[in-house]
């Protein structure tokens, strides 16, 4: 019996030990479940919640007391998925298989305040006695989702920035203003900024002026084009720009670099956030690329600051390309000008040499006659030939003087010194000089309208103009003809007209009349160099005036000078 009793005792002790071990084990499992970082929830075949751990309470907001006994689908499954859940449960109970069993999947769950929360869910069914129990681990993955979304957004932004920079780099950059408009528009679209503007430093480097502005919504924002901001008023901002430091002001009214703008610029324009970067060209800051958010603020990201810097570099490139294109065009223009000048010079030399050969030929033939045939010539003939030599030497000397005058004028070596002068008196003096060698052969008349005794003109140039026009009038009109000089005041200066009753100038020749060595076709035997009017034209040009004529063959000629005075 002892044996038997001790046997029983031992059996009881073993049962007790086993029972305690079981209890301990169950307690450990319960603690593990309770302390789990995942929500652990079990439901029965009827879909009612049977267990609800602490994490389930914090994740969904319902306490275990509130949750247990309630259909799971009503408590945490969003309405759209409830039917599917119920069908899945029924199918499992019938077929013992299911699509969601023994897998981890991501679904949306509903918390107590009605928000949908992304969760990772795994379900395992197990038998408990005669029935199935479904256990599930539910993990809140909303933080991971947020991080993933953030990463995705960053990736998308990087791609958008990269595409935008590619587009900017492909822009033709010859015409700065056009390129800039494109750059600002693309920039504003990419950064979703309310306004993007380019401000250029004025030559003193102490102020910037808004040169170009892009507005996402022109109706909702003011136009700051032409506005000027000075270093004197905003030293912090200018020193940031000078040190090549971008100004990243999420709250521009509070940011140390931009708060000085608050009352004069930010508030009136409703600017909340700014992102400004300097535009550098040839080693110095030449402008500022300015991004502004109107109405609502913006937390600029590092990527966005990098992008803004890259856009500023694009503007620098465009400045460089356009300045190079401009320099090339200027070189081409000056080459063309040089070519034209050298053609004019070549033409002049060719015509001049032709014009000099004629008097030289007369002189040479005269000399040859006297030398080789002198013994066979009459005394009177010899005298006539000597007279020819004399006359042609005088003519050549006059031509040389005129060529030199033209050359000086063309080289810009004729000075223009306007001074107060008595215009009628000067005209009378020149008229006397011109008529002296032709005493009494023409009737010279001077008409003056208004007070012209104090006008500001260059006396020497005026003398040149009048003596050329008057000697032409005398030379190309018959003896006894009248030459009329009329003077008048105008709003801007004076007009001087010289009219004759001479042979006139054919209309076809009037266009080329002021070219060197050009003479009208009807001059006949009247000598001349074709340089006088070219000289007059240059003197008029130096005055900033104009010369016009009214004439027709055999109908007299009138030249009109309009001179600012």
């Amino acid at each position, binding site marked *: 019996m002892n044996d038997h009793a001790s046997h029983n005792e031992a059996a009881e002790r073993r049962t007790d030990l086993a029972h305690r071990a079981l209890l301990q084990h169950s307690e450990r499992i319960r603690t593990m479940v309770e302390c789990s970082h995942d929500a652990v929830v079990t439901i029965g075949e009827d879909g009612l919640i049977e267990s609800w751990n602490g994490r389930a309470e914090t994740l969904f907001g319902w306490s275990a007391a509130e949750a247990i006994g309630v259909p799971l689908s009503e408590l945490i499954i969003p309405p759209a998925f409830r039917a599917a859940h119920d069908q899945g449960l029924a199918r499992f109970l019938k077929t013992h298989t299911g699509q969601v069993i023994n897998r981890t999947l991501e679904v949306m769950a509903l918390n107590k305040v009605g928000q949908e929360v992304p969760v990772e869910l795994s379900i395992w069914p197990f038998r408990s006695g005669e029935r199935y129990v479904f256990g599930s681990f539910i993990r809140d993955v909303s933080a991971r989702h947020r991080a993933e979304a953030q990463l995705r957004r960053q990736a998308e932004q990087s791609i958008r920035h990269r595409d935008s920079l590619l587009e900017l780099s492909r822009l033709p950059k010859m015409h700065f203003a056009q390129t800039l408009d494109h750059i600002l528009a693309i920039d504003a679209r990419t950064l979703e900024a309310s306004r993007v503007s380019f401000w250029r430093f004025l030559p003193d480097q102490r102020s910037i002026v808004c040169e170009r502005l892009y507005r996402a919504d022109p109706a909702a924002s003011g136009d700051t084009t032409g506005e000027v901001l000075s270093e004197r008023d905003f030293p912090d901002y200018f020193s940031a720009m000078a040190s090549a430091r971008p100004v990243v002001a999420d709250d521009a009214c509070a940011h140390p670099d931009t708060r000085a703008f608050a009352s004069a610029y930010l508030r009136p324009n409703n600017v909340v956030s700014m992102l400004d970067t300097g535009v550098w060209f040839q080693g110095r800051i030449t402008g500022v690329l300015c991004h502004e958010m109107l109405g609502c603020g913006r937390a600029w990201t590092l990527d966005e600051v990098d992008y803004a810097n890259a856009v500023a570099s694009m503007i620098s490139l465009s400045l460089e390309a356009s300045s190079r294109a401009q320099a090339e065009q200027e070189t081409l223009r000056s080459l063309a000008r040089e070519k034209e000048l050298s053609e004019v010079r070549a033409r002049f030399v060719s015509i001049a040499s032709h014009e000099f050969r*004629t008097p*030289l030929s007369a002189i040479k033939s*005269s000399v*040859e006659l006297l030398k080789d045939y002198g013994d066979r010539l009459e005394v009177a003939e010899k005298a006539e030939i000597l007279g020819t030599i004399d006359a042609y030497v005088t003519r050549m000397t006059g031509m040389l003087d005129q060529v030199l005058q033209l050359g000086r004028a063309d080289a810009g070596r004729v000075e223009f010194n306007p001074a107060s002068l008595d215009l009628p008196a000067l005209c009378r003096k020149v008229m006397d000089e011109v008529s002296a060698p032709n005493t009494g052969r023409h009737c010279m008349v001077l008409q003056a309208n208004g007070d012209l005794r104090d006008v500001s003109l260059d006396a020497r140039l005026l003398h040149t103009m009048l003596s050329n026009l008057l000697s032409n009038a005398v030379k190309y009109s018959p003896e006894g003809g009248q030459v009329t000089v009329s003077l008048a005041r105008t709003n801007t200066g004076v007009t001087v007209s010289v009219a004759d009753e001479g042979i006139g100038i054919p209309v076809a020749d009037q266009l080329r009349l002021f070219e060197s060595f050009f003479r009208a076709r009807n001059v006949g035997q009247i000598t001349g160099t074709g340089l006088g009017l070219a000289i007059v034209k240059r003197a008029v040009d130096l005055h900033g005036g104009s010369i016009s004529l009214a004439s027709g063959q055999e109908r007299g000629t009138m030249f009109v000078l309009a001179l600012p005075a």
Partner: protein
Amino acid sequence: MSHRILVVEDDAAIMANTLRVLRLEGFEADSACDGLEALQRIELQKPDLILCDIRMPRMTGDELLDHLRARPDLAQIPLIFATASAEPSGRSERILRGAVDYLVKPYDFKVMLGAVRKLLVGLPGGTRDGV
């Protein structure tokens, strides 16, 4: 009978001197102050040779030459240009158009007379004076 030369020239002094030399050398010399007057004179009396300036009012030497070459009865009259134009291409251009010689002013009378005589050798009508 001596050869008849028509001098076409718009500069009065050059004309006077050329006429003097030609007459002193035994030629008959007539004058015309431009191409148009020359044409009128040629219609009245055909010269044996024409000594002609190029740049003249009303009708240039080039135009006169074209007129003459277009007229079968006048096309054979030899024409020597005497011009102040010193363009390098001037000479070959005028020879191609039918001028027989091209003198650039100022020229020696000896050169002019040499050219004239060379052309008149063998032509009927020459008498003395080396022709």
